[in-house]
């Protein structure tokens, strides 16, 4: 996985070989991008469902527009 295992050896190379990516797993960028897309879309789906459930639950309770005032905590 390590792209560089010895900095002295790495920096002693010709300049065009020194420059370049140094993160672990160079060449696996496509998979990483795919994982990021899945995280993004998955988060959107899950959080949207959570929000819908929360809003429906509260809407069913129908608190009055002043009910929140009795919930203020200052202790």
């Amino acid at each position: 996985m390590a792209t560089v295992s010895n900095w002295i050896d790495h920096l002693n190379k010709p300049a065009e070989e020194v420059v370049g990516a140094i993160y672990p797993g160079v060449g696996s960028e496509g998979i990483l991008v795919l994982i990021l897309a899945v995280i993004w879309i998955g988060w959107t789906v899950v959080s949207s469902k959570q929000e819908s459930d929360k809003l429906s639950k509260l809407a069913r309770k129908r608190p009055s527009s002043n009910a929140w005032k009795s919930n203020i905590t200052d202790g």
Partner: protein
Amino acid sequence: MTDELGALTTIFTEFYYWITVVLMFLIHVGFCMYEVGASRYKHHQHTLMKNTMLIPLVTVTWFLFGWWIYWAFPTGPGLAPSIMNESAALITDDSAFSSKWYLPNSELMAVNLGDHISGVFWAAFLLFSWTAASIVSGAVIERITTFAFGILAIAIGSVFWSIDAAWGWHFDGWMLKILGYHDAYASGVIHAVAGGFALGVLAVLGPRIGKFSSSGEPRNIGPRNPWLVTVGLFLIYTGFWGFYAACNIPIYDLGPEYGMEGVTYFTATTIYVTPTTLSGITMNFLMSLSGGLLAGYVVSKGDPFWTYSSGLAGIICASAGNDLYHPIQSLIIGMIGVVIAYKMHYWVERRFKIDDAVGAVAVHGYAGFAGLVICGFVLNGYPSSGYSVGAMWDGTTYAAINPLGMFIGAIIMFFVLGMIPGYIIARVLNGIGKLRIPREVELAGLDYQIMEEAKEDEKTVASSST
């Protein structure tokens, strides 16, 4: 990097942009404070969370496709050939600054010893994206779902602002070449587009319950925490310093860049690679801020909310040409922008029943639009680019800055890339029932459940003796 001067220049540029990113983070902190201060107590936490979550959503999508769009779309596509590859297609080839290098799977989109600049430049633009989304966030508080706002934030932050930046805020953008568009510090490319987008969303979203009486008369729902609004706006001003610096290239040798043999001229430049000075734009920033505050105080009769917002509107209005204006011109332009924004806000509110909770459409949209139009007159005849006669693919020059081109540019920013997409996306979200929170929740307060749970927790804690 093997030569000392080249290394110093590169590391200085890298550090310069890094500092601007840190400063610009304060814009987002400021927007969060401002929005919470403007919202009512029962909606505070939701308001804060909504604006906070745009950070990861816009960041992820900016990484996946927003940054790529900026580098791919300067030609339109199909509207004007690129000066890099002489093609009017999307710029996806091997040419310098091609979008190919900024695909999310590119090796330049990570720690790379051959590239010290792409990452900080990506981050600076990303912070602009957050700002664009955050502008919309304030306008829609207390009644939009977080899901809908997330979609809208991605649309403005990672798609439409990126397209407008490619068109009008890129040295190769077609709007410079054909229209003579000039917008050095983003009156249009950030503010007018985001303000227009917010207006499109608001037209579908509707006002907060109680904002208008049954006869249609608007009611004032003023900020519930003026101090938070004040500090928020001061932080936005502060972050705006970073934004101005981030819009510049700190050091550039224009001689070889413009193809002038034997000429060396190092200077700071705008995003268009035209010369300016950090010194001069600092004066203009402060003078346009002052003009905005002066005008805002008078036009609003000393209303603190509008006076502070007007400082911001003043800067926004002068920003298009603040690379070249005289400081007194900046001040006057800032004053004009504030009067237009203030008057337009109340006219639109009454005429179209638009509830812009924080005046975002006015401060960013109308002031930005006015700033572009004014810039067309004041900078009429200035070159829109340094890549001048003979440097283009067909030997013609970039159009000079002119009133008509800037007016058309303002229309493109506010309406074409702002209001229309905002309206359409909001209509789709509304159509699937995901745009607006239920009426019962809006009345009860988005934080009702959290507050109720906190009260129960507090009861338990208060009754405890150990």
